[in-house]
């Protein structure tokens, strides 16, 4: 474990692949704790918990600048993106823990209502990731994704919900690094945008 204590600008790759420079992902600072530096493999399993959720929790409106941790819902297609994400994990590539993954068989299965529902339940950002066009396991699923979800993005933007909150990406099964980058960039972008308040359903009595 290389614990040089410096800011985790580059993701740590456990096992010292030696090409950490190529894995510039962007700042991993999560609040003031080095939760981003997931000491995967360390004994601090407990500290995983801290990183994996509400540090500076999602109470809308009670945020302090710098403490906001966006919640991302990721719909990953089983064959490419989910496997790619898995590869990121097994390669010990660091990426922010803000994403909660929902596996779907194909990105084409993602209904725009899923995205809206995610926003209603409090997601700050939604990521839909699938195979590269031309490589879909089901031949043409991702072509349909492209049409449907780019229109959804336009629709959201037109209604005043920032289109940057909804991201589509093509991540193949071998692109663990790319997946980590996508999540990292997306998280940073959402941190700047702040919590999503337009569509959140009110819970409870209020």
């Amino acid at each position: 474990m290389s614990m040089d204590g410096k800011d985790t600008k580059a993701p740590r790759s456990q096992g010292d692949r030696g090409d950490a420079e190529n894995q510039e992902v962007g700042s991993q600072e999560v609040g003031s704790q080095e939760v981003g530096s997931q000491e995967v493999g360390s004994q601090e399993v407990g500290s995983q918990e801290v990183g994996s959720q509400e540090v500076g929790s999602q109470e809308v409106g009670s945020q302090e600048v710098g403490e906001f941790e966006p919640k991302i819902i990721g719909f990953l297609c089983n064959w490419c993106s989910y496997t790619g994400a898995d590869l990121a994990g097994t390669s010990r590539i660091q990426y922010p823990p803000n994403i909660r993954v929902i596996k779907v068989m194909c990105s084409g299965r993602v209904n725009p209502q899923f995205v809206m529902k995610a926003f209603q339940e409090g997601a700050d950002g939604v990521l839909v990731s699938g195979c590269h066009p031309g490589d879909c396991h089901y031949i043409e699923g991702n072509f349909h994704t492209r049409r449907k979800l780019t229109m959804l993005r336009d629709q959201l933007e037109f209604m005043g919900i920032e289109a940057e909150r909804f991201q589509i990406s093509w991540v193949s099964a071998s692109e663990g690094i790319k997946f980590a980058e996508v999540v990292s960039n997306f998280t940073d972008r959402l941190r700047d945008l702040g919590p999503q308040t337009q569509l959140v359903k009110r819970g409870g009595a209020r």
Partner: protein
Amino acid sequence: MAKILNKEDLDRLPGVLSGYDVYAPVSHDGVLRFCRLEEDSDQGMETGFTNTHKPPKDLFFPQTEVMLELKREDHKWTGTQETARPTGKAVALGMRPCDAQSLNILDVLFTWDYVDNYYINNRNRFTIVGLACTGGDKEPPTASCFCTSVGGGPGSKEGLDVIMTDIGNHYLFEALTDKGRDLEAATAELLSQADDGHVQQAKEAVEAAEKKISRKMPAEGSVEYLDGIFDHDYWEGFAQRCLGCGICTLLCPTCHCFDINDVVKLGEGRRERTWDSCQFEYYSIHASGHNPRPAKKHRQRNRIYHKFHYMVKNLDVLGCVGCGRCIEKCPVNIDIIEVMQGAKEAAKEAGKEVEKEAGKGEAKEAGK
């Protein structure tokens, strides 16, 4: 004793009523609804309007109302009555007499078999200040008003605590009930004594408005003539063009159906009621999937019968106040007066067959 209020002082009225929450018709991009007037907001009460789009039942029976807070503790759900129920006195300014009459009807509907405390709580805290219809420019009666044939009138005092009538430079301000007199006392600084001339002017304005109402609902004897034509083909005709949108019921001041839903999210939630409409396809769908009113004609027929037969027969109130909103807003011009006139005609034609039809109708109902 009647008082008068200067027209220029109307804007000061909400300010003077400091002990009250003041609700008045407010324009929302030209669409009028009863909204609370914020003390510091410059958006004030509308004048020169016919009627609000959304009826004032919204004040006492909001479109979405939380009934219970639900919490899950120790694997058990508990529901507590929503604690932040509005309290304190409130006043609704500028309610038209037809809408005020609907309050009397709603009072019966919400208390006849079960006292609906949510409604009653809201209703009791309000003092209703009505605005009589005087037939001026941009004022009612409109081409679709028909309050006079359903027991109301442009100057009707039913359901009101105070009635204001436009008499040129002033409003005549008459307190009608104890609540009204309390309000009068609270606004004393803006009011001055009215003389006989003012009262006469108001009377004449209302009479002139009455003459302008051209449409008449054949409400007389509706129970009898509707009785015989439940299964008549008549209901096929106009209902063919119905869209099933429910605008007629949602904007109706007397319609009161609601749906109750539990909305929960991870151990906490709420039980709320929202307006429902008998015109929606799944309004009365059974758990088995059977729909007793599958076609538009069944649902439209139900609306007519509910207003002009069931309510009259069972509760002794006519379920229509003649505001005309359903006529104005129906996208395909299903005109309730026309429908009732047609129904009366159909009943007349069915004439001697009425009892036979009723017998057939009952047998069919039983056989279903």
